[in-house]
């Protein structure tokens, strides 16, 4: 490919990444402590450059009103929709920690793409229905986790036949299920910053392998993609676990919620794989003849974003360490 074309592509991709990496902006934290069935103490506990209280404005569920640090709710208690206004201007996410009177805690995460949450009213409402919402959360986590999807896309670009595809996807699934469970049940723990950096590295790793496939060369990864899928799958599982930890788990039914979250992740991932395969099949049936650079765009996307995230996250890691 001509050099100038590469340059243009690189610029476009870098511009694209600006939109994708929003989840590493600063996060606000709010604490809500129940002091009586209908009363709560609330305050912002962690802020970014500007105090969270100046930028963000909580919109409480109907029937709740604030008197300074005191939040009074009606007979329904803290039940209904909690939204946060002003998200996206300095804050990309807010974590709401609710401590109930009976000693249980629940964490909710709001983001600019998801500016409201439903509060269940009490800790006792974390019944199986509550756990079922983790299926949904699992699907959401994978569908919004562009880095995980990009890794899967990279694997699809390397895999050569159907049997290898089944082996690779299964290996990735098994591996990330193991570490998701291990991390969530508290058996092992990985610090977030290095984890994010190594997940980015796993995506970057696939870039050169994809180029080798284009050139018709072979490598260990190309011959045995499932081994790579398994190894890096272990990493991605820890990533899912940190996402799940941010959401918080109902303490009395961790295994069920964990299982459903995992199933949700698999549903989302299989849907993505199926969609890509169907689209690829459609292009083949319709006998599309793409210009070479479009045919290779997905590969460049994997490589460039992988590189970009690696640099960015290593930088965050070093800054955190210093």
């Amino acid at each position, binding site marked *: 490919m001509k050099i100038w074309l590469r340059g243009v592509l690189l610029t476009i991709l870098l511009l694209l990444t600006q939109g994708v990496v929003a989840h590493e902006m600063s996060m606000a934290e709010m604490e809500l402590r129940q002091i009586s069935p209908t009363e709560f103490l609330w305050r912002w506990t962690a802020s970014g450059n500007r105090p969270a209280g100046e930028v963000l404005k909580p919109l409480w569920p109907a029937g709740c009103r604030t008197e300074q640090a005191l939040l009074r709710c009606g007979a329904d208690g803290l039940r209904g929709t909690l939204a946060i206004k002003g998200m996206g201007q300095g804050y990309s996410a807010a974590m709401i920690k609710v401590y109930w009177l009976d000693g249980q805690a629940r964490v909710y995460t709001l983001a600019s793409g998801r500016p409201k949450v439903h509060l269940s009213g009490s800790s006792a409402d974390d019944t199986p229905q509550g756990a079922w919402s983790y299926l949904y959360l699992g699907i959401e986590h994978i569908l919004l986790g562009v880095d995980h999807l990009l890794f899967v896309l990279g694997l699809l670009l390397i*895999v050569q*036949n159907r049997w290898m595809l089944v082996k690779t996807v299964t290996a990735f699934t098994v591996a990330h299920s193991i570490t998701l469970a291990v991390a969530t049940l508290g058996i092992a723990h990985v610090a977030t910053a290095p984890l994010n950096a190594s997940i980015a590295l796993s995506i970057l790793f696939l870039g050169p392998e994809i180029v080798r496939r284009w050139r018709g060369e072979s490598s260990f990864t190309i011959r045995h993609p499932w081994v790579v899928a398994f190894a890096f799958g272990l990493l991605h599982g820890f990533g899912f676990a940190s996402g799940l930890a941010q959401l918080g788990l109902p303490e009395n039914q961790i295994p069920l919620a964990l299982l459903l979250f995992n199933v949700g992740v698999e549903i989302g991932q299989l849907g993505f794989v199926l969609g890509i*395969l*169907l689209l690829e*099949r459609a292009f083949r049936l319709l006998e599309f003849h793409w210009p070479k650079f479009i045919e290779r765009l997905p590969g460049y996307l994997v490589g460039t974003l992988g590189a970009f995230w690696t640099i960015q996250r290593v930088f965050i890691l070093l800054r955190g360490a210093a």
Partner: protein
Amino acid sequence: MNVKKQRGRPCAVLGATLLMLLPVLASAHQEAGQTAGFVAGLAHPVSGFDHVVAMIAVGLWGAVLGPPAIWVLPVAFPMMMAFGGLMGLLGIPVPGIEIGIAVSAIVLGAMVLVQVRPPLWVAAVLVAIFAIFHGYAHGRELPAGGNALLYSLGFVIATGLLHLVGILLGEAHRWAMGRRIVRAAGGGIALTGLFFLWRAVVA
């Protein structure tokens, strides 16, 4: 990813894709009213026995006539019926609807019983006229309100599925034993039509 060059099974994939779309159409909506509209539409054609037997008779006759009628009828019928429904909804007066519906069951049943095989255009025109009667009756009966589009969709799908039942039953026509059963079914449908005619005229 270059999954090996294969023509694959387009039928299966297409069918699966369309099937995946169906429940999405039907139930993805959070508002219960919309789903209810679709289900009500699905249920409507099945609620009147005179309609049900006539729809099945169309499928049966199609199978008796063999290709190309077997596919012309199920393609033409829904559109003609919808045209009748349109007339009903617009309130254009058409006389003798109840009688027309009963007669349609008698004629179609008799065609199957006696194994009449007229030229395709005769069969098509006959079925088209009956289709308009049926559609018109539905058009007049359709309840107002609700999600009209989903209701109509459910209604059309249920009608089409009834044809499919008729065609599948009619496929038994290939065997000697099956032929007798198909003819018996035609006779039964004609008798049902007679009953409805008697009711329409007397009552």
